[in-house]
């Protein structure tokens, strides 16, 4: 059993609380180049994700990686989450997972 590197659920606003640590989030892709992807977080912020995205990318993608600063993540893992995804649900989850219920996750 290994709980050594959990990833915190974040949205755009919560990213700044975890700079330098492992995070996970889902973004809606707005632009993708080789080496980075720009997307909208579940709470409407613009985020930049650096790394090698899979090709092709679906509209929604989950990234897991290290938060570089309050609007950018260096991703280690990318997962296509499809073209339809309930972003508001996920956003609520982020808020719950960072609030009183943090101990269930981190």
């Amino acid at each position, binding site marked *: 059993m*290994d*709980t050594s590197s959990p990833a915190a659920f974040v949205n755009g606003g919560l990213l700044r609380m975890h700079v330098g640590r492992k995070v996970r989030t889902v973004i809606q892709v707005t632009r993708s180049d080789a080496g980075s992807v720009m997307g909208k977080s579940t709470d409407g912020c613009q985020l930049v994700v650096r790394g090698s995205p899979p090709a092709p990318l679906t509209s*929604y993608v989950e990234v897991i990686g290290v938060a570089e600063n309050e609007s950018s993540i260096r991703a280690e893992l990318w997962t296509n989450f499809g073209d339809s995804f*309930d972003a508001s649900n996920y956003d609520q989850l982020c808020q719950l997972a960072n609030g009183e219920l943090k*101990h269930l996750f*981190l």
Partner: protein
Amino acid sequence: MFSSSQFEDSSPLAGGGFMSSQLGGSTPSSARIRDMQGLVPATVKQISEASQSGDEKSSFIIDGVDVANVTVVGMVFNKNSRSSDVRFHLDDGTGRIECIRWVTERLDTGDLDALEDGTYVRVNGHLQTFQSKRQLNAFSVRLVTNFDEVTCHYLECIHFHLQNSKVQSKADEGSVLASQAPDLSFSTPVRGASNGHHLASTNDFSMQYNDDGLKSFDKLVLNYLQQPSNIDREMGIHVDELSQQLKSPLEKIKDAIEFLEREGLVYSSIDDYHYKAVEGL
């Protein structure tokens, strides 16, 4: 004040010798046992922190509830296929746990053959310990295709946790049995030694108990109502005022009032929103 709870089988009134030994409160943990849950949604972190139930059932306790089977959603890593079994680590972002899918027939694991590292799956399985490591004996491994399932799973974990935290904190009132739940802490059994009054922070889900069986938040509400200036108010105190004065959400106030009313410590005065403390206790 001894308040019996439906969860407590070991009161002297229960059974009378006619109950089967399984229901007869054979172990202290029966105070909080409900029937074995079905599939409990859990994060790997919750599983890693679960305590183990002492009897031969060798099940685990999460949030005070006996849990044998769990459902977990996460990513597959380090898959290893052998003739007898397929093993992999499941990483759900809160930790990693080893999963084993025993193979009886080759056809059984067709679903697992295609799994690559980083694929999201839902694993349903039986929690067990082997060489002091926790493992999942998986009876079902299914690919996640709609990723709302991932969000949903974590919300279910939260829901399960909240449901059981609320129920067990109410079931514990008046209980003289030691708690086995890891996230509740109280320093002495309810009857007997008096200890200091512990105040729990209002944001803390794990409640602390003082020595007369009342949760500290219930006591806060009661104390407010028992203040002489409030006793004198004929119409009683509105729950909104309680919510404001104690800086707590209305729901929490209502829960406390409900409990205090059941215990005969407060009563509703002019309507269902106004309460007064019972005097002369």
